[in-house]
C-alpha cells in the first residue's frame, strides 16, 4: 500500500516538474518579448517623450520663468 502511494507521489511530482519546465519556457518567451521591446529604438524614444512630458507638466519646472526653451 505504502509502496503504491510512494509511486503515485513520485509520478505526481514528475508531472509537476514537467509543468514547471513548460512554465519556465513560457516565462522565458515572454521575457524575451519584453526585452526586445525594451531594447528597441522606438521604446527608448517613447521613454524620452514620456520623461519630457513629465518634466513639462511639473509645476516646479513651469514656475521657473527664466527657463530658456
Amino acid at each position, binding site marked *: 500500500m505504502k509502496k503504491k502511494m510512494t509511486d503515485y507521489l513520485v509520478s505526481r*511530482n514528475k508531472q509537476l516538474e514537467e509543468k*514547471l519546465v513548460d*512554465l*519556465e519556457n513560457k*516565462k522565458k518567451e*515572454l521575457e524575451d*518579448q519584453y526585452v526586445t*521591446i525594451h531594447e528597441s529604438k*522606438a521604446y527608448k524614444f517613447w521613454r524620452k517623450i514620456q520623461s519630457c512630458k513629465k518634466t513639462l507638466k511639473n509645476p516646479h519646472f513651469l514656475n521657473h520663468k527664466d527657463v530658456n526653451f
Partner: protein
Amino acid sequence: MKKPLRILVTNHHLYQYTGTEVSSLILCKYLRKEGHEVVFYSKYLGNKLVKTMEDYKVKVVDNLNLIRNQKFDIAHVQHNICAYEVRYYFPDLPMVLWVHGYVPFLEQVPAIDLNISYILTINKTVRDHVFKLGVPKHKIIVFRNLVDSEAFYVKKPISKTIKNVLVLSNKLSVEKQTVIESVINQLGLKSVHIGSVYNNMVDNNKLVDYINNADLVFTISLGAIESMFCGRIPILFDENSTQFTDGLVDTGNFDFLKENGFSGRSLKRIMTENDILDDLQKYNYKQGELLRKKALKNYEANQQIKKIVDIYNQAIKNFKKKQLSKKNNEILYHLIRSVEEARFYSIDVLRAQTSTIQGLDINSLESDDQKIMHECFHYVELSNRVNSLNEKIFQLKLDLNKIKNSRYYLLWQKFNKLKKIIK
C-alpha cells in the same frame, strides 16, 4: 437558448468526494452541458477532482489574483471564505452564495455585507436559519442539491429482503460504527464499507455500482439522495455533529426529512441497536422505486440547472454596484491577508520541520513513511514554484498587453511594416 453566461464557481476545497465538492462537480458539469463557460476556483485542490473538472472543460484555478482581470457575468459561491475572496478580487461582480448547512463554520453567512444578490439554501431549515441571522426574506431562495441522474441510476433490482448493506460515510464515529457492525452481525448481512473513515474512498463514477450491490445504505445527506436515485433505501445513521439520527427513509417521512437535507437531525432520535433493528423490520423493497421517483422530482440535475440559470439571470438583471464601507473594506483586506498568511505558514512550518529529509535523495531513505513525507514536501516545494512562476507570467502578460495596446506600439508596428515594404 439564452446567451451563454461566463460563471465563476467556487468551493473552499476540492480534493475528495464529500458533500460540497461533489455538488461543485455536478453543478459545473451541468452548467457546461447547458453551454455556459465555467471557471472553478478553490484553494485546496486534489489532482483527481481537478482532472474530472478539466474533463468537463472547466478551467480550474487556485489563485483568484491571477484571474482578477477576467470578465465574468456572475459568481456562484460556496463557503463564506470564498465569498470574501470573490468580493475582494471582483468588487463589481454579481454573486450568489449557496449555503449547504447551518452547523459547519464554512457554511455560515459572511459577517459583513458583501452585496450578495441571493443566498441559496439547500432546504427550508437552512433557509429559516439564514433568515434568523437577519438576511431579508426576498434575498433567500431554496435551491436544493443537484444529483447526477446519469451517474446514479438503477442498474439492478433491489432484493425483496435485506441481504446486502453498504455503509457510506466520511465521518462516522467509532460508537456509531460499533452499533452498525453489531446490527449487521445480528442479522447476518453482507456489508461493504466505503468513505474516508474506512480509508476506502471510491471514485464517484464507481459509487453507482457499490450502491446497486446493496439493498440498504447507512448514510446521510447527499449519500442518501444518491442511494434513492439508485432505487435503494437509505437509513439515516451517520455522523452529523449531533447525537441524533433519523433512521429508515420512506415515502411517509421523505418530505419532512428532505427539509433537513436528510442530515439525520430532523426527528431528533437517539437510536440504539434495537431501534435500528425495529426500523429494519419496516423494510419494504417497493419503497425503493417510490423513493426514487420522489428524489428525481426534487433533485434531478437537468431540472435543477435550469432553475439556477434563471436565478443567475435574475441576479445579473437586478444587480446594483455598491461600494463597501471604509470599515468593511479594511476588515475584508485583513480577512484575505489572514487566510493567505495562515496558509503560507501552515505549509512552511512543515517544510522547516522536515528539512533534514528534504535535502536527501529519495533512494537513500529507508522507511516508506520517510519516502512519502519526502515526496509530499517535494510536491509542496514544486507547487510553490509553479505558483510563483504563474504569478510572474501573469504580471509579464499584463505588462506586455499594456504595451501592445498602447498607441505608440501600434504606430511602431505600422512603421516597421512600412519599412519592410519599402525595403
